[in-house]
């Protein structure tokens, strides 16, 4: 079985400052991985490097996506191949309706797969169906992308787009932060509804509470640019009780 994502000794820096200091992570089909860790440990950086953000320089290591070299692809090619990033801070695009944006994105992916653009009616029906997954009102389709959306609405819109693009690997960067308990439940059930044996999800989060809803197969702790511990979901509970300091101390001793 080819892993969907295989990260080996990945190193990345920004402005000559090394942020990722050798990450190893293997994600197989059907799995859910949680990445936890204190602020500033490099979680968003990892997500950005995977998605191909140019600000970061990859200084070493490799990433295989379904067996292919991911780092050689442009950000849009990575997306079309099936890598999705739900942004910690989704951007607003004035004047571009959510419907138009999503249609453009979906048609790019379809073109990449050699498929015809969807008929407008079929597309609208699909959008409505997928919006229902995250209990988003169809009126959002006509509104400018993310403009004037509340924090929770923006996060739901990310998951709606994920549902439309149907990725192979989805990386959710703190999709839970800023959500109240109801919104959290809605977002999580949307993500769960998209789980299949042939895709995988990487959930970046600070909090155990999201993992009550999206139950991970593996939990990793990222600190200071390295994965300092991996375990099953009980690790998340342990972190909840003990915090991160004990891990930091252990990691410092080992280093």
């Amino acid at each position, binding site marked *: 079985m080819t892993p969907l994502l295989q990260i080996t000794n990945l190193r990345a820096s920004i402005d000559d400052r090394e942020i990722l200091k050798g990450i190893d992570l293997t994600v197989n089909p059907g799995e859910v991985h949680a990445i936890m860790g204190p602020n500033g440990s490099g979680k968003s950086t990892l997500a950005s490097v995977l998605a191909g953000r140019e600000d970061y320089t990859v200084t070493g290591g490799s990433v295989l996506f379904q067996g292919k070299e991911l780092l050689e692809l442009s950000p849009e090619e990575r997306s079309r191949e099936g890598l999705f990033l739900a942004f910690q801070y989704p951007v607003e695009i004035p004047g571009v*309706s959510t419907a138009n944006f999503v249609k453009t994105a979906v048609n790019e992916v379809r073109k990449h797969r050699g498929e015809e653009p969807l008929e407008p009616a079929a597309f609208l029906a699909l959008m409505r169906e997928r919006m229902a997954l995250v209990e988003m009102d169809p009126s959002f389709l006509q509104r400018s992308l993310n403009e004037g959306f509340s924090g929770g609405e923006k996060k739901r819109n990310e998951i709606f787009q994920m549902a439309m693009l149907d990725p192979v690997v989805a990386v959710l960067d703190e999709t839970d932060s800023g959500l109240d308990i109801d919104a959290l439940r809605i977002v999580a059930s949307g993500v769960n509804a998209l789980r299949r044996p042939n895709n995988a999800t990487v959930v970046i989060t600070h909090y155990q509470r999201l993992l009550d809803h999206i139950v991970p197969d593996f939990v990793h702790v990222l600190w200071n640019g390295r994965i300092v511990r991996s375990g099953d979901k009980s690790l998340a509970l342990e972190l909840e009780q003990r915090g991160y300091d004990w891990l930091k101390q252990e990691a410092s001793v080992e280093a």
Partner: protein
Amino acid sequence: MDQQTVLDEVVSSEYKYGFTSNIEQELLPKGLNHDVIRFISAKKNEPEWMLEWRLKAYEQWLTMKEPTWPNVDYPPVDFQDIIYWAAPKKKPELNSLDEVDPEILATFEKLGIPLEEQKVLAGVAVDVVLDSVSVKTTFQEKLAELGIIFCPISEALETHPELVRKYIGTVVPTNDNFYSALNSAVFSDGSFVYIPKGVRCPIELSTYFRINARNTGQFERTLIIADEGSYVSYLEGCTAPQRDENQLHAAVVELIAHDRAEIKYSTVQNWFPGDKDGKGGIYNFVTKRGICAGVDSKISWTQVETGSAITWKYPSVILKGDNSIGEFYSVAVTNNKQQADTGTKMIHIGRNTRSRIVSKGISAGVSQNSYRGLVKVLPVAQGARNFSQCDSLLIGDACGAHTFPYLEVANSSAIVEHEATTSKIGEDMLFYCNQRGIDTEAAVALIVNGYAREVLNQLPMEFAVEAQKLLAISLEGSVG
């Protein structure tokens, strides 16, 4: 007369950039004097009063100076180095496109706007201006049934001289500015439109302008009159072949709306902006003005400006009739070394007059994009209202956006609102689009069209689609 010398070798030469079509041309030698104006007027069989009007404008022009206040920078224009007359040798009278010179059709094909296609475009009458003389007019018969006059202004001078004489120069006086004086002296051709009382023009009237003769300044003159209770929508669109010399274009457009009449004037302008170093682009110094002469009348300007090396253009409305409405919707794109100084003037005279200004500037490369707008409320303009929205969008760090709003309000009952924003297409926005499978070029097109949507929505449907593509093309390569 040596002015009649035909410089055939100039016409038939090939150029380093772009192409020129081989339609037989008639050119005057370079330079401007009384004889040149007499020649032009005689060529067109104009009535004596028209010649005198031109000569008076020329005298005025001689005393005037080129304006220096626009925020643009270019080498001085040598007005004696311009050819003031160029026309296709034959001026055929044609009833169908099949009779058009195949050379002309080929030129349009190269430009990607085949006439054949235009003919099929349902509901669009096309008055093609190639160089200075109108070559083809379509849909005329249908319009004639309604009493609508839509023809080259040179033809109107022959068939309806009294109408031309009554209105020409009434909105833009010959001595209004340096370029309007020049245009009045030497204007070559342009469109004339008259919509009779109570008639709603059933089709979009459209004119494609082309600049197609080397070293030939273009001096178009357009006059549109909407009589009481009438309506007309007019679209002007331009493209030009690439060339390696600067070309001056100084058009004058005058609109007159009588009681309860409405004129909608839309422009999609994509003249050659010059190459990446700014070489060879068109200088576009235009005077466009309309008057809401009657009560409850309305004039609306919509422009999508993507071309020209230098643009200097302020489509304006004089709101004279009570309850009249003036609108200005503009998207101005500058890329590479383009410079644009554009905006509008809304002059409130009548009571309860309203005006609305929506200006969207988009700057990329090392271009400079200025909005310059005047809202003037005269003491008699009781209850005047204006709303202005001026937005600037920057692509990259090397371009400039400037806003110069002028307010002169002399009636305390006036309500004048001005809003302005400046935004940037940032890395974050582009990366977000990339992450959704949308490449940077497509992302810029998407973002820019979203930004300009309020203006594009004002265009007739089929032209809105064209304009959207044009915006994307104009900004190709501006990021990354």
